[in-house]
């Protein structure tokens, strides 16, 4: 007899013993029992087994009733057994009142949810339509805030030259310094069609910048900060890597998907970019509009790429331009402009290699800027 047959027979035996068969079926089964000794034996044996199971189940139930009663009576002081002490008592009380606790907790939960729901419904909603576009469209309202901030900054530091308050920046991205004197790298698409460009540091101070170089094929641009208020910064903490990154190498990024600098981490998932593009590589990281142009750093603090595009069809798939193209872009820039950039040399030695991630981020974040464009 094969297994499915056995299962069927057992099923029939159980229904027979439980009296779940209809009269015809029952008659048929009883005949079978008479003629087939094996089945008859199975019925006898299984009946015994089921009886035993039944009694066993009831025995278990009764024992648990006894234990419940014992604990209850002891707690009520009606019998003089040792009262539960310490942890056991806590467990007892917890079991006894967990329904109450659960109800209280769910009421608290529902209240919290409805309050947050209420707050959410009256608070301004994020504009989801922006999320697919990698260069971020800044909202007018936010820009107003930014202008106010600028005004405050001006009040704080009268020597700072006021920016033209009439400029409303529409879109933006991220960028990072490749030279302490004020050269930044970002994506070319971030500064496409720009009339005015400004970069803003972590503290919210805004500086004017101009495009020194842009290569739309590679999607790389070099910006130069042209602002009297910008004080040259010291040597860069991170290096710009010439090498190709290895698969699965953990990486992190810093950028401005919102008005606050945001950290994200992931890993290099493919050595080529979208559609086998050899200029870029693929990274699994959570990136949002505004992350465009931000640096991709490896664990030793080397910039290995520039975060550029996100595949709209897949979450968490981001393409980054390989960092060696920064060198190429700078070389091209040098060849075009004879004086201004000749002395610029990219840092090839990271000074934050041995630090833990928190410390690395602390060092790097001052060198990552928000790029704002109108």
């Amino acid at each position, binding site marked *: 007899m094969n*297994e*499915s047959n*056995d*299962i069927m027979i*057992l*099923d029939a035996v159980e229904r027979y013993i439980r009296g779940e068969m209809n009269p015809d079926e029952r008659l048929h089964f009883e005949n079978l029992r008479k003629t087939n000794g094996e089945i008859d034996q199975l019925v006898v*044996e299984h009946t015994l*087994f*089921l009886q*035993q*199971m*039944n*009694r*066993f*189940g*009831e*025995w*278990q*139930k*009764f*024992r648990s*009733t*006894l*234990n*419940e*009663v*014992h604990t*209850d*009576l002891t707690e009520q002081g*009606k*019998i*003089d*057994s*040792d009262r539960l002490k310490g942890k056991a008592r806590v467990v007892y009380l917890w079991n006894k009142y967990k329904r109450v606790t659960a109800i209280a907790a769910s009421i608290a939960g529902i209240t919290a949810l409805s309050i947050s729901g209420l707050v959410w419904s009256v608070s301004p909603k994020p504009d989801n339509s922006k999320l697919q576009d990698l260069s971020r469209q800044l909202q007018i309202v936010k820009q107003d805030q930014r202008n106010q901030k600028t005004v405050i900054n001006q009040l704080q530091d009268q020597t700072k030259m006021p920016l033209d308050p009439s400029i409303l920046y529409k879109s933006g991205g991220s960028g990072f310094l490749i030279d302490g004197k004020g050269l930044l790298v970002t994506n070319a698409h971030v500064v496409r069609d720009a009339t005015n460009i400004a970069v803003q540091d972590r503290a919210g101070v805004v500086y004017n910048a101009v495009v020194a170089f842009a290569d739309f094929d590679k999607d790389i641009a070099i910006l130069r900060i042209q602002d009297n208020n910008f004080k040259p910064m010291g040597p860069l903490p991170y290096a710009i890597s010439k090498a190709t990154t290895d698969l699965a190498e953990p990486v992190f990024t810093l950028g401005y998907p919102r008005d606050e600098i945001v950290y994200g981490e992931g890993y290099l998932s493919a050595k080529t970019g979208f559609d086998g593009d050899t200029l870029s590589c693929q990274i699994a990281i959570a990136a949002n509009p505004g992350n465009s142009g931000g640096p991709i750093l490896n664990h030793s603090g080397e910039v290995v790429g520039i975060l550029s595009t996100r595949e709209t069809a897949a979450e968490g798939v981001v393409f980054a331009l390989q960092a060696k193209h920064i060198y190429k872009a700078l070389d091209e820039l040098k060849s075009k402009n004879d004086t201004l950039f000749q002395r610029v040399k990219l840092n090839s030695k990271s000074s934050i290699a041995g630090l833990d991630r928190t410390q690395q981020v602390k060092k790097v974040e001052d060198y990552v800027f928000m790029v704002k464009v109108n």
Partner: protein
Amino acid sequence: MKPENNEQLLLQGLARNDKKAVETIYKDHYSVIQSLIINNNGSADDARDIFQEAMIVLYEKARSGSFELHCQLRTYIYSVARRLWLKRLQQSRRFSGEIVNTEEVVHVEEDVEEHVKRDLEFGMMEKAIIGLGEPCKSLLEAFYIQKKNMQEIASNFGYTNAENAKTQKYKCLMRLKKIFFTHYKNGTK
């Protein structure tokens, strides 16, 4: 109501696993048994064990339907508990003398022997079911003890359909029955 009638009612409740009845008997008789145990080399935990075992004897008797109480409930429980405790003491060789009776005692040896045997069987069954591991344990308990139907079980245990659950249940059952009948045959020989 006469106390005997009252006790008969309590026994009927006990047979149904009625919590109120269990509570009443428990409350009225626990302290007598506890002092019996504690005065005879036992601890409060021993008292609890022995009293609950005596309650199980009473429960089984009440369930059998043929049980007629020829003495007071108090006397019966005391007699059973005393007998159980004596056996326990003999097994652990802590004590080989006599227990000083503070109560009237009736003859309960057969009842206790029957209980001990059954207790062993159930203990074996419990061990066997636990020994099956999951999901067999929960699956068999759900079907044979909680008496849930296969559709319900299939959805509770995340089987795609009742047939899959049935197949799994069958495999578990075969394992349990094998253990059960081995023990059973050894036990009855």
